[in-house]
């Protein structure tokens, strides 16, 4: 019998179907696929980053690189309109974020909390923008 720790949560996965504005895109998943308004997604690079063991030179596995995070604002049967909601170290309300924007601050994504991620190479130019067909994966509420 499966217990809570071994249970796999089925995340909603899809792809970018269209780019509407500089803040909105469409994904090919809707309420038929379990998407609800407010659900958050990561838009991922086309190719995951391969981590090579420096000692053995063997592949340790792949890490997905995140381009941007979006939140479902309009959910229809088979598609959802998602909107970017925040990017880098800007916290608090609008005023605080503006103050943060004006002052010197470290532009590190909030979610990258461990140093190891800081050493990953930045996304290549061809991967630095969202494209139709990019993968999207649901974010868990605590992510």
């Amino acid at each position, binding site marked *: 019998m499966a217990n809570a720790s071994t249970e796999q949560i089925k995340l909603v996965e899809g792809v970018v179907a269209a780019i509407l504005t*500089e803040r909105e895109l469409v994904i090919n998943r809707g309420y038929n696929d379990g998407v609800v308004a407010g659900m958050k997604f990561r838009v991922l690079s086309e190719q995951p980053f391969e981590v090579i063991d420096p000692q053995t030179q063997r592949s340790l596995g792949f890490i997905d690189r995140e381009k*941007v995070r979006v939140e479902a604002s309009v959910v229809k049967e088979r598609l959802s309109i998602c909107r*970017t909601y925040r990017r880098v170290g*800007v916290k608090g309300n609008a*005023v605080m974020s503006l103050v943060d924007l004006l002052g010197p*601050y470290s532009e590190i994504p909030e979610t990258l909390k461990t140093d190891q991620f800081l050493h990953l190479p930045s996304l290549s130019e061809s991967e630095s*923008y*969202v494209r139709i067909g990019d993968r999207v994966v649901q974010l868990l509420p605590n992510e």
Partner: protein
Amino acid sequence: MRPSDPLPEYKWPKPHWKAYLVAFITFALLGGFTILGALPAILDDAGSQWLRKNGVTLVLIYLPLAALALALPWLVSVLRIAYKRITSYPNLYTQTQARIAEFDRQAGITEAQMQAARKEISALVLQVVGASTFEISGQRFDAGKLYISLRKRRGRGYKLSVGDILRVRHTEDDMFMGTFEVTQVRNTDYIALGISNVDALWAGRVRERGEITLVPNMEAIYIPKGEANG
């Protein structure tokens, strides 16, 4: 009908099954006694034979009819309510739409007020810190990089020069969209190149469209040298 008027309420009538059952048994008994009383008179040979042949059929036909007759007042009231509900749907629809419109209007006002307040506060903050803002007059994606053009201000105001750093914000919610460096000063505008943390969706949008000249929701803020480390 005004949105504040109470909605008409037509409840389905409840069937009084116990009363129907008591009435049914009472009438069945009365009917039975009547038949028994009249039986000697109708029970000649032919009548008796006919009754034996068709008695069960008669009971099977008349009992449901009797039950239906007893439930008739309830059925009539159900039909009446159904009719009222059907005829009141257009009114209900109108009223519901009016209420939705009213809610939307109130929400719209609140959102507009919030937007206005946010803009006022943002303008105040920018004024207090002495930041210079620039209108973005165009965007272009070229060779994997995002370029923006910034409209030059007439008269007084900070004049940008090559190497100056700006940050772009979305005016709706102050979301940071990227850091740019001025690479070219032209007669009517400045050209700035996205150098770090350019929003991937924005870049993707411009790349898809090639060039965008209408940029109503974003502005660039000049960051004095030494403060920008993005």
